[in-house]
């Protein structure tokens, strides 16, 4: 492993998984590049209507 470590992380994908990783890392003291191939983040979850079991709006 390298000695010149860098304190930033790249997260590839801006869906629910990528967003959660990015938030956790940024709040823990790391700079995050969140790379998303589409024009906006949110992923498939943004297309869902409601989610079980709380019937919360997925948005």
């Amino acid at each position: 492993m390298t000695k010149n470590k860098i304190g930033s992380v790249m997260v590839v994908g801006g869906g629910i998984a990528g967003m959660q990783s990015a938030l956790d890392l940024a709040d823990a003291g790391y700079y995050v590049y969140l790379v998303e191939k589409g024009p906006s983040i949110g992923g498939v979850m943004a297309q869902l209507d409601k989610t079980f079991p709380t019937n919360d709006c997925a948005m």
Partner: protein
Amino acid sequence: MNIEIITLAEVQDIKGEAGNFSVDVLKHPRYIDEDKCIACGVCAEKCPKKIIDTYNAGLSKRKSAYVEYPQAVPLKYVIDPETCIYLQKGKCGACKKKCPVDAVNFDQKPENKTINVGSVILAPGFETFSPEAFENYQYAKHPNVITSLEFERILSASGPTQGHVSRPSDHKDPKKIAWFQCVGSRDMNRCDNAYCSSVCCMYAIKEAVIAKEHVGDELDCAIFFMDMRTHGKEFERFYDSAKTKSGVRFIRSRVHTITPVTGSDDLELRFVTEDGDLKTEIFDMVVLSVGMQTPKALVDLSKKLDIDLTPGNFADTQTFSPVATSRPGIFVSGAFQGPKDIPQAVVDSSAASAAAAELLADVRNTCTKEKKIVPEVSVLGDRPKIGVIICQCGTNIAGVVDVPKVVEYASTLPYVELATDKLFACSQDAQDNMVELIKEKGLNRIVMAACTPKTHEPLFQDTLTAAGLNKYLFEMTNIRNQNSWVHKNNPEMATEKAKDLVRMAVSKVAMQEPLAEVELPVNQTAMVVGGGISGMAAAKSFAEQGYETHLVEKGSRLGGQAVNLYMTAKGEYIQEKLAEMIASVESDDRIHVHLDTQLSNVDGFVGNFESTFSSNGNETKLEHGVAVLATGATPYHPTEYGYGTDDRIITSLDLDKKLMDDDPSLKTLNGAAFIQCVGSREPERMYCSRICCTHSIENSIQLKEKNPDMNVYILYRDIRAYGEKELLYKKARQLGVIFIRYSIDNKPVVNTDSGKLTVNVLDHILNMPLELEVDMVSLATAIIPNKDEKLSNFFKVATNTDGFFIEKHAKLGPSEFSTDGVYLCGLAHYPKPIDESIAQAKAAVARAVTLLARKTIFSSGTVAQVDPVLCAACGVCMSICPYSAPKFTEEGRFAGKAEINPALCKGCGLCVASCRSGAIHLKGFDTDQILTQIFEMDEAV
């Protein structure tokens, strides 16, 4: 601030090694300048080109210039180069001519960037299986055969039908809808996806139940399935209620062909029922429950990046390092790690963050930026000078409410110094402008009439802070969700209502005082309760990230239930891995293991807990900032199937023991039967224990491999080999393991009367009773949480009816409790295999570290406060508070009177309402503030 979102970008290559990678990223042009775009929507309005709306899964049209959906982040328009007339043919440019801020830029070119990072997390997601190739399902030909994602859009209020369930061909309200499960999953004949997609059973049930809610009870919903896989937390209960309460029909059959009914838009299904009868039934529409798969481009990229894939094309991971890819320093989360639902994706994502943070612990805070602190201006004694900002929210509000009129009205209200409107009050330029206005006009209170405070209040409060104003000198009123959205057809009344809401907010904010938040240090030590795999994984992750950790185990050894287990679903020997794990925990200087120790008391609150350890009569105290509860579970002790009466009837764990000991008797068995769901999915335990199907299948393979001639039977209700565990199920069948389904009202009967061991079961295919003569029966027993009410009370955490801990949010907060500073993982949350337990342990730590990393926390300003002069010391507030915030003052002038700890108070107001002396006030929501709002509202009536 420390997240840079790079959209329209693709990773091309990753060079370097763990700790220091250089990533090549290709950024495609947006053709709209992100810094200039104000998302007014003029470009889309003027764009003449209509194209398919992928956000609505192709069910509606949008323009070539578009924003995916109104809540998109970043809220910036984009031009689709494939369909834009200008970019294709060099003419048009209507958007460029009309854009009010000159943001359209057709000259943008693709950009190559190289970014240096210490670690990479791959969360690229999945694509839904496209059923076009299934000709017998008519998806490509018939409009009323749709995918589950399309149906999801039909159900959505923001979808093409505004949530009105109608079928695509003629917009008729359907009377009968069928769902087909396993389309593009568990299928090697018509597609190459042998695995189970894990989520489709649950979403199909959800869609059916919600469809019935939208349409009414008369809607007939039928789900055609092979095995119903509701193995997640609370899923079994939902399945049961869909059957018994909502009346969704569940038909165990794989429909072969859909035939369009001539002369109508209906669809005829032919299927064979469980009894073997051939039936036909006509439906208005069919929803195909499509599975998840890894897109081809991602498979290619993985090869280039040297990331190993599984047979199903998911990133290959090991059970004891569930989020690490084959390439060190690159981690994986979400559906690319394997098909999974939202909570599991959220768990993995936090786990991947923890894994990256473990790697980069010594370079923390070296690349991050810190917020500048603006000194707060004192407004005490100043006359209120209120600024009112009315947000147009694009056309969301301004399309209904006459915003200029509301602005004009607001400027006439008492103490209002300035009233203005903004196209999007939440946009960066509007925020900057607000700061200037506050400073320039000397405003000391702000009213924001816009959307919901739930999502936007913190943002606007930050703007106040940036302008040097106390963030509580702010009131938000919702003229969008509660006004323009619901009164679309009545713009005049909506404008009047907006005025009323603004007047109420102004009257309240005029009485608002600046509130103080108490700054509290966060103790940097962690405590983990439970020394099983989950607890050890959590302790290890804390330690790797540099935190002193105390691991408390009530037993005399580490390892928990894992000491009883033989092999993982991926074929790893558990005892070897477990021994390594225990050694690494014991040898870590930062981990302090406390065996034979229980908690006898916990005081304090988030960031400042004080726990008392009790061990062999000795008590010691530990101060810690966070706690992870990993208290595990135990196997159900069966009373059924003759367990305990005959040595040949054993549990799964007994069989694991024999396998670990390489018991020679296993080779000589002529027959063995596994009975599933022993104690699970029963009325008194209405949950699936999730791992038992895989466990029995794994053990059946072991037996078959020891002795291929052995007759091995698995008696089951539904085989729940989710994800790629399905491949194990397939392997068992190929090895000749015989699977016989039984129903709950006709359970197998184990008999030893004649000295022979027999199992009687009704075969569902032959519809004939079978008698299986075997030498061993292995019972797949339920997993029962270690319920510890004392512990629950110590941390104010709740358990569900089954005794599992209740997490903060079933989807978005699966590894933390509602109680701040307390986290959970492992079997105490819900039954799960080792890889998922370790992932959740890391996830709990990742969430805890976000708190520890802040070093100090601020309590909320909107908390209750006791006026000790009025307090009658009756103690009602103490008994009613769910957070134990009120206590009697112990010493001083007001000894004996109640006082409220602002760090524990959540501002719910229960104590305020319950106080018979009127001694308690909720700051920011004081009685006079609420009354003035009511009086102002009264004026409207």
